[in-house]
């Protein structure tokens, strides 16, 4: 504990340097704006900003991008509450009761509780990251290729279980992502696979064009032509203070949402989205008056908003400790660190303590910055929502092209982004979740390499996966999750957890 404290002090000595503070502040502002814009979620925002971080010091780069990430989580709630438009997917549940509160003249308290819940959950998530990541990293030092193979397989099984929609569709999308990850030079044999003679594809398909295409471009293709809502409320500072009763009702959901969000954030998938759905379902089930949900219950704002912010922090635990992304956002952030020659993973904390602890401390600072930004300045941010969508989406499109092109100065990346935008548009029409595609793309090379390295270690004997205790435990856990996932598919009477928490059971799954 003493060591953790002294490390944290080292982190604060870095995070409180004026230039780092400026970047944390800039990241939070950009993130809040990005989160408020429909079509630009945290992933597209981070991807577009990524090239701008190449010339920066790695600590500054990660602080800036992390600020955009949790800033977007905060910002997404504003449009949900005031306009019933989720700025990003994790804010969908906030729309339900948040907008009803706005219609009832309680927009101010809804915004305030969302900001306070996000602050508490974000801070809780950082504490969790600080305590859990070093322990996990120490444990992960014992990992070899078989353990990494088992870990990734377990991640994919859990992804199937925790998918918000159809389990089969989620697995199919993870498969599609893994296939995309096969494009490029095979690290073990030197073969160039599926490059169709395009030299640039030898390096594989980048996460940025795929992510921006799937999440940014496809959203614009679906929403282009939508009318701008004309009446956006602009709450005043004095209207923001919640009543004593609203504080009392929100305390439990914020606490539960923080814990739940952090735990879900650690596992792979669209954690911040799933956590908000699960939190809403739990709060509705636990409420003495579940009939209030859907007509302006403040618990329906406090729980999901806390959960999605805690999940955003939780996602950094496997990223920092194991070097494995559990979400497309952390995949892009890993790319941002690796550009500087630093590999996230078990050795990061011992080899780059300034980066890890500076990053942790900057998250504390970032949460305070966001609380200050989101409450008094909400009226200022709301002005962004008055920009007609006819002007907004062309600007977003140009930013998408700019961001994708400038990662590697490659037009192939821009074409890939446009193709993925079209693919994402069609897949969304058929209700496919797109996050597993991005996740599969990033995990594919690691999974293939660790599988083949494991088999090389054991002279082709698959028994290596059951002889090693950590690997076999992870395989078993993954398999149990997978069996739970397919139970409702085989036994029609089996009750799906999605129904328990208020998520729709997907068609055909």
């Amino acid at each position: 504990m003493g060591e953790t404290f002294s490390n944290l002090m080292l982190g604060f000595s870095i995070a409180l340097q004026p230039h780092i503070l400026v970047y944390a502040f800039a990241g939070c502002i950009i993130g809040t704006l990005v989160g408020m814009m429909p079509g630009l979620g945290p992933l597209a925002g981070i991807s577009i900003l990524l090239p701008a971080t190449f010339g920066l010091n790695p600590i500054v780069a990660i602080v800036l991008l992390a600020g955009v990430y949790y800033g977007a989580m905060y910002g997404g709630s504003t449009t949900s509450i005031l306009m019933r438009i989720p700025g990003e997917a994790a804010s969908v549940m906030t729309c339900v009761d948040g907008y009803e509160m706005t219609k009832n003249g309680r927009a101010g308290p809804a915004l305030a509780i969302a900001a306070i819940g996000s602050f508490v959950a974000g801070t809780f998530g950082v504490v969790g990251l600080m305590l859990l990541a070093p322990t996990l990293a120490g444990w992960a030092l014992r990992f070899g290729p078989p353990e990494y193979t088992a870990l990734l397989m377990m991640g994919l099984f859990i992804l199937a279980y925790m998918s918000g929609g159809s389990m089969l569709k989620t697995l199919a999308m993870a498969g599609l992502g893994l296939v995309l990850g096969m494009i490029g030079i095979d690290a073990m044999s030197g073969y160039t696979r599926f490059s169709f003679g395009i030299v640039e594809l030898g390096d594989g398909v980048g996460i940025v064009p795929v992510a921006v295409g799937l999440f940014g471009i496809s959203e614009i293709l679906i929403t282009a032509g939508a009318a701008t809502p004309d009446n956006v409320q602009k709450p005043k500072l004095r209207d923001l203070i919640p009543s004593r009763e609203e504080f009392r009702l929100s305390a439990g959901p914020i606490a539960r949402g923080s814990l739940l969000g952090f735990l879900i954030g650690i596992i792979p998938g669209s954690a911040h989205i799933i956590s908000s759905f699960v939190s809403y379902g739990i709060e509705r089930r636990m409420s003495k008056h579940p009939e209030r949900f859907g007509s302006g219950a403040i618990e329906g704002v406090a729980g999901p908003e806390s959960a999605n912010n805690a999940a955003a922090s939780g996602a950094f635990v496997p990223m920092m400790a194991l070097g494995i992304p559990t979400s497309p956002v952390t995949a892009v952030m890993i790319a941002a660190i690796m550009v500087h020659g630093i590999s996230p993973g078990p050795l990061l904390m011992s080899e780059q303590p300034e980066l890890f602890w500076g990053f942790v401390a900057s998250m504390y600072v970032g949460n305070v910055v966001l609380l200050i930004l989101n409450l008094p300045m909400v009226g200022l941010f709301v002005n962004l929502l008055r920009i007609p969508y006819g002007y907004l989406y062309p600007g977003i499109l140009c930013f998408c092209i700019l961001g994708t092109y400038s990662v590697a100065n490659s037009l192939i990346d821009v074409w890939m982004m446009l193709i993925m935008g079209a693919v994402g548009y069609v897949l969304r029409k058929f209700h496919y979740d797109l996050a597993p595609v991005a996740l599969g793309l990033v995990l594919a090379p690691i999974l293939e390499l660790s599988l083949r390295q494991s088999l090389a270690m054991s002279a082709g004997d698959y028994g290596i996966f059951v002889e090693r205790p950590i690997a076999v435990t992870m395989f078993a856990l993954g398999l149990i999750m997978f069996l739970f996932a397919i139970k409702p598919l085989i036994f029609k009477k089996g009750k799906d957890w999605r129904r328990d928490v208020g998520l729709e059971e997907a068609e055909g799954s």
Partner: protein
Amino acid sequence: MTEQTPQAPVKRGLKSDQFSGLMLVALALYIAWANQEYPVGSLAQPGPGYMPLLLAIFLGAMGLLIAFWGGRSRPLRDVQWPEAMRATIILIACGVGAFALERIGYRLTVIALMIFFTGVMERKKPLPVLLVSVGFGFISFYVVADLLDVPLPRSPWGL
């Protein structure tokens, strides 16, 4: 006379999940076919074609299962595409923009794209369109290329 209760007509034809599942099967077959170029190796010694083949089988199996359980999904003809024309135009315009980017430079490309989207597609008034487009092109270039030092293509005329 017996009273007849009106029943919703049962919609026949392909369902949306059946269609999307079969598309995935087609994609999986294509991947397996294209993978023939690479040595698959053996179970004990996987080659470069091993994992893609495994994934093609997995994708195909998922596609088949989605199609098999897709009978309860909505009919394919009920999938609405009201914005498809607009989406196609946006994609084509972006494609033209991508083609032009390294030829006429970032600023001219962005200005042309903004004028097309706001002026032609959204039918905004000419003066705001011109101001927003030129302003966006020059300001974004200044911030990204000059302030953040990200190299962006310039036109042969220096713009």
